[in-house]
């Protein structure tokens, strides 16, 4: 551990682990006090450690989506749900429905209990959105792709290429609109859409052929010294492991799922994936330029997230899911609250952000300067 910390970007994996742990924590409770605490924590950390990239604005967007989730959840429940409890707020007229739709009810009384239960539920969903938004704002998905293990390299390139298509298509549309203005073209409707869509698609196709040529000329997909059996084993282990982990997430979130589907499957899946990655890392042929290091701040950030999640899950069930029928004021369980406070630490633990370099156009270095290219 060094005395002073140099500004750098934290490993994207650490932020994603931290955010994912908070999202899991949020999914385990409907206690609004704890949920609001999680939103406050993500908001504070994002404000403290958000880099100045286009991605970093995404937190506010996810926050709005979360609010929308609450509104929709409450509205649907009020209209369609069966209302428990006796505290009626308002009585809506009941929509008469044909007899074959018996059991479905639209309108009727809306109770305080119902509104509270649905808003707790909506809040939980909104907070999960918030956690994803925080991860997006703190580190761009592109950086995460760069840090993918060697076993996932080809998939990573495919996603990177796909991500690059969008800004290029936007640029192409811009150029075409300029061209249309130059030519004074003013058709509307279908002709206009055709006039823009076809050249953009043509351009995208040409661009992908060019890109394939460029990738080939730059050595993408060179035959390494890896035997085919090892390559196949890597792919097989990774794929099965990831599938197992996806399946286990269902078991973790849904309490009614068979108990074997949760934690045990997660452990097996993680083990298989790790084995696949380890095998993939051994195959030669590629190296990585300036990989993001994983040092103690990364361990701390990921660790505080996990600790918060574990502490929250250990809280008493009555406090994690406060009853709405009968109405009970939600309490503040001590252990989960203290645990969540841990997740606030990354705001100080994560290294400070590097300041952006001043942007100004440059000229090439003067030709008279001595040669700096050595035969490496």
């Amino acid at each position, binding site marked *: 551990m060094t005395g002073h910390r140099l500004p750098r970007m934290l490993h994207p994996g650490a932020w994603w682990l931290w955010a994912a742990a908070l999202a899991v924590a949020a999914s385990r409770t409907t206690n609004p006090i704890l949920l609001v605490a999680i939103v406050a924590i993500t908001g504070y950390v994002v404000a403290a450690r958000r880099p100045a990239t286009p991605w970093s604005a995404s937190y506010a967007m996810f926050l709005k989506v979360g609010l929308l989730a609450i509104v929709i959840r409450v509205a649907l429940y009020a209209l369609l749900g069966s209302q428990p409890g006796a505290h009626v707020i308002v009585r809506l007229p009941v929509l008469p429905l044909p007899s074959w739709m018996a059991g479905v009810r639209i309108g009727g009384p809306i109770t305080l209990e119902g509104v509270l239960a649905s808003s707790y539920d909506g809040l939980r969903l909104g907070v999960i959105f918030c956690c994803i938004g925080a991860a997006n704002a703190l580190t761009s998905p592109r950086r995460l792709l760069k840090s993918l293990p060697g076993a996932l390299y080809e998939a990573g390139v495919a996603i990177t290429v796909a991500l*690059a298509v969008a800004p290029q298509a936007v640029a192409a549309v811009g150029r*075409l609109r*300029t061209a249309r203005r130059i030519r004074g073209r003013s058709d509307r409707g279908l002709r206009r859409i055709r006039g823009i869509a076809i050249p953009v698609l043509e351009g995208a196709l040409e661009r992908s052929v*060019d890109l394939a040529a460029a990738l*080939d000329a*730059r050595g993408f997909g060179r035959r390494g010294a890896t035997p085919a059996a090892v390559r196949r084993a890597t792919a097989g282990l990774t794929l099965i492991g990831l599938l197992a982990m996806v399946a286990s997430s269902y078991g973790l979130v849904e309490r009614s799922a068979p108990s074997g589907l949760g934690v045990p499957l997660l452990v097996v899946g993680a083990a298989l994936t790790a084995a696949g990655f380890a095998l993939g890392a051994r195959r030669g042929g590629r190296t990585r330029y300036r990989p993001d290091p994983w040092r103690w701040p990364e361990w701390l950030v990921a660790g505080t997230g996990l600790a918060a999640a574990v502490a929250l899950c250990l809280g008493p069930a009555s406090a994690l899911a406060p009853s709405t029928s009968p109405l009970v004021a939600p309490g503040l369980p001590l252990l989960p609250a203290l645990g969540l406070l841990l997740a606030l630490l990354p705001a100080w633990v994560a290294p400070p952000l590097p300041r952006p370099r001043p942007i100004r156009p440059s000229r*090439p270095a003067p030709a008279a300067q001595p040669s700096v290219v050595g035969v490496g």
Partner: protein
Amino acid sequence: MISFEDVTVTYPDAAWPALEHISFDVTEGELVLVIGPTGAGKSTLLKCVNGLVPHFTGGRLAGRVLVAGRDTRTSPPRELADVVGYVGQDPLAGFVTDVVEDELAYGMESLGIDPAVMRRRVEETLDLLGLFELRDRTLLSLSAGEQQRVAIGSVLAVHPAVLVLDEPTSALDPAAAEDVLAAMTRLVHDLGMTVLICEHRLERVVQYADRIALLGPEGIRTGPPADILRDSPVAPPIVDLGRLVGWSPLPLSIRDARRAAAPLRETLERHVGAPLSRTATEPVARAHGLVTSYDGVPVLRAIDLDLHPGEVLAVMGRNGAGKSTLLATMAGIRRPAAGSVTVSGRVGLVPQEPADLLWAQSVDAECADADRDAGSSAGTTRALLDDLAPGVEGGQHPRDLSEGQRLALVLAVVLAAEPAVLALDEPTRGLDYATKRRLIAILRRLAGSGHAVVVATHDVELVAEVADRMVVLADGEIVSDGPAREVAVASPVFAPQVSKVLAPLPLLTIGDVQLAMAAAQ
């Protein structure tokens, strides 16, 4: 290092081979310049070296190409990536990542170069090509010249034994081109890198070449530059001057030519005609206090500019000085942040990528669309096209036309709207000398018929041939404005070759010299 053994390349569905019975060798550490008229197969030849032909383009390759002892028939481009660095014509099309630094590292990552070495080489390449301050920038936000430098840097970083460059300086301003070429010659001298380069702007590269390979309909001819250029159909102005005056050996650099030209300067001194003075006319377009900005950063700062009918104005300046922005603002495509543009009539703009203006499936459909857009009678555009470039087949897809034909089609489309002002952004990129001469004749004629013509360009030879007046932009401001003759002769960067050889005489082109010589006799 590279050897072509009786190579014939035939693309699928092609009537005749793109290359026929080509045999030549390039030895280690040589810089070979490939020249030839458009369509002679220069790009095909270059793509053969790293195996893109035929592995990627398809087609049939007879004979064989050996690079560093490897046969390209059995080694696809990816297996040759450690020996051959290839930079294509369009740098943007060759980019794989989206940030400068990652792009420089990509090739080395694929080759499995040790991370410590990789880190050092990226830093070296950043310095070598002057990219240090751009390292975090996205590739799409760079200017054309910066992109070209990144593209070259990204293959240089791998330290290939062979560097193949297809028109590396076409998009660059004169100063940036010199820098790139100087960096390249240093690589040749210091590292013994073998370079194969193809460039239309011979005046920029001829002096660096050890040997020239001339591709023509009758096959390939290689030899020392002075021998090949003596009767080559494509030649830079300095060689034309040498041929005209009958110098032997043919000088290829300004220095050599200036030494040979001392007697000529003396003879011509007394016979240089006084420059024509223009009669004052009412301006057809006028910009006043023009300010344009991108994202709050001003690109043009209070520009005042008049355009007169019958005048050809050249706008020069380094990459990113605001030339394209000035043209787009004059044409009403960009809104000025302050100031005004008044035009009596329309401004027709030919953008940097002329093909952007073409989106129909055939030449005929394109012409019909242009007639409808402009509201002119049917057949107007076709008639203009036949006038500019006779013999373009109506059924062809615009994409399949040659560079020159495509430019003529775009010009016809723009002229169909009967603009009073014609603005062209970098029109000579990728044009060979013959096509450029046609363009010059067209522009002169348009000016003669009362159009005002504005050309934004890096091509000093084009300016010398066609421009009456020249404006130099720097940092969004006009730093010089005057008759092209005076401005060009006064500036070492923007002077054409003939003027550099004959300075201080105000002669810019071979035509000027011919006139003066005729007067002297």
